[in-house]
């Protein structure tokens, strides 16, 4: 039966080839475009998670409602340290994050002062490439200050100048000290540049008399999609007194973007399929009506209508599978050379606003490919049922008698 389906397929070479090409291109479009969109969203999510920072954060339970210095947490204890050393954790860092006022000779502004561990901060999110002038912090008690380019502009200050930072310690006493600006960074979002100023973790802890307590612990794994597999272990180690949250709960905008993307991929795949299905149905209908005689003959010889139906479906399935194979190969073949990124800065100036880079890295996901293939096979067979059913209902006498 397979032989019959196969030979029937190649009866009208041109039609089959055209249809195959259509399926191939359709499948390619599904997968390739999906990879591009995935790449874009991946990038946005990466940037988003980098800015949080971390895929998982540990805070004081009250911190989310009131992110003040009072709601700090102790440095990780033995238990938590052990959990943080597991293989699933790629990097982790602790930071103090407090509201502060920064003043230059000319102006002052409200900012968020971050006391960070420079080495691990870099691993988790801060990009050294973003330093446009000067240098980043060197160690935990570095008392230099790294500020955004935009903020420097607003304060009318520059590298090497001194500024004063003022904040409150846990006892609500004003704490202030002078800092020298040792580095200027540029961020993708101007608002970030104006908001965050970095200095060493211990410098802030001393300034605010908070011993070795911190505001948050940020942790990153290998893949942001797998967070749910490992963060419960961290949560357990952190204990009930602390709140351990994955990125999708910290930033619901980011997670809704991922969900929207999943929906969008499905819609895209189905839209391409619909375009394909017209061609597919048309091909099959033509194939069936061309073969009225022999379908009648097969029935007359004792092939049950259900077997005729199966025969036609088999033919369509063959067509789909070959097209799918070719489409997948083509998609993989076009994505791999683009793995190093496509420069879309020319067309995507506005995109940076949304947190996307100007270099697009297509992301081919096994799940997306499986989805595309399943949709094509499943809906393909479904749409083939109509012409196949018509064929199964031919009246053998009439079919044989037709000249």
């Amino acid at each position, binding site marked *: 039966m397979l032989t*019959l389906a196969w030979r029937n397929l190649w009866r009208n070479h041109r039609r089959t080839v055209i249809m195959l090409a259509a399926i191939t291109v359709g499948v390619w479009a599904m997968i390739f475009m999906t990879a591009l969109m995935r790449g874009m969203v991946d990038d946005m999510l990466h940037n988003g998670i980098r800015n949080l920072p971390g895929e998982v954060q540990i805070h004081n339970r009250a911190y989310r409602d009131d992110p003040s210095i009072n709601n700090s947490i102790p440095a990780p204890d033995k238990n938590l340290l052990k959990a943080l050393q597991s293989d699933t954790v790629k990097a982790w860092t602790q930071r103090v994050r407090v509201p502060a006022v920064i003043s230059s000779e000319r102006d002052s502004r409200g900012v968020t002062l971050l006391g960070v561990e420079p080495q691990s901060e870099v691993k988790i999110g801060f990009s050294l490439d973003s330093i446009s002038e000067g240098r980043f912090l060197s160690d935990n008690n570095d008392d230099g200050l790294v500020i955004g380019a935009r903020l420097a502009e607003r304060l009318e200050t520059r590298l090497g100048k001194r500024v004063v930072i003022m904040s409150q310690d846990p006892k609500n006493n004003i704490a202030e000290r002078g800092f020298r600006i040792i580095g200027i960074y540029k961020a993708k979002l101007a608002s970030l540049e104006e908001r965050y100023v970095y200095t060493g973790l211990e410098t802030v802890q001393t300034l605010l008399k908070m011993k070795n307590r911190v505001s948050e612990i940020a942790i990153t794994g290998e893949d942001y999609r797998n967070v749910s597999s490992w963060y419960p272990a961290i949560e357990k180690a952190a204990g009930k007194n602390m709140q351990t949250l994955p990125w999708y709960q910290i930033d619901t905008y980011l997670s809704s973007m991922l969900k929207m993307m999943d929906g969008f991929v499905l819609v895209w795949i189905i839209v391409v399929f619909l375009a394909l299905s017209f061609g597919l149905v048309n091909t099959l209908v033509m194939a069936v009506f061309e073969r009225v005689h022999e379908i009648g*003959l097969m029935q*007359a010889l*004792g092939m*049950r209508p259900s077997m005729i139906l199966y025969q036609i479906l088999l033919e369509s399935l063959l067509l789909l599978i070959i097209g799918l194979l070719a489409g997948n190969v083509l998609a993989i073949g076009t994505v791999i050379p683009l793995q190093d990124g496509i420069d879309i800065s020319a067309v995507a100036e506005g995109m940076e606003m949304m947190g996307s880079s100007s270099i697009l890295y297509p992301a081919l996901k096994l799940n997306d490919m499986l989805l595309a293939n399943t949709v094509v096979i499943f809906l393909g067979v479904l749409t083939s049922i109509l012409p196949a059913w018509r064929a199964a209902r031919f009246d053998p006498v009439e079919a*044989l008698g037709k000249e």
Partner: protein
Amino acid sequence: MTAIVCKDLCKTFQQGDEIITGLENVSITIEEGDFVCLSGPSGSGKTTLLNAMGGLDTPDSGQILIGNTRLDQLGKGALADMRLNKIGFVFQSYNLIPVLTARENVEFVMQVRGVPAKERASRSFKILKEVGLQGMENRRPAQLSGGQQQRVAVARAIVGHPALVLADEPTANLDTLSSSQLMELFVELNHHHNITFVIATHDVRVMRYAKRLIKMQDGKIISDDTQEQINTRDK
């Protein structure tokens, strides 16, 4: 045992405003192992009658029994099964599946029946040799002459040793020699395997082989003679 019983078959066709009579009160009883020729001018209803007997077409009224089974009581699937297992067909036209080779065409019925590949191959090889198509097993229908195609169809009809063979003009495209060879084969199968044959034909050479000759005209049976009767009448 009777192979087929037809009772008061009527069939009309509508063509535009015209009503054409296909069969009019046809009743025949064919015994198992009989060798029947249906003859009559073109349009006399031979094909229509064969189609009705094979369950391909339902008469407007009347009954057909094959063995003990009433055809009008069978569903589409059961009719298909009956054709598959009991009847060998040779049609007047469009006999072969164009994408399959001669051998595959012969094997088609056996394949649908689920006969194992090995047995199919040996049987089809043997039967193709018997109908004189040795060496052409792997040709497609388009690479065979009309007569050769007809012989492939005959081979397919008899390869599964059906109880009944319904053949519509099996010799239409054959030369004298081939058609007599084919008829000898039919006679032999009829003789040795007790296969019942019903053959519609214009060909007098074919009619000579008949044990029973039924003449039709305008959808009616006008004469029904055994070979002896024919012979005595001819004398």
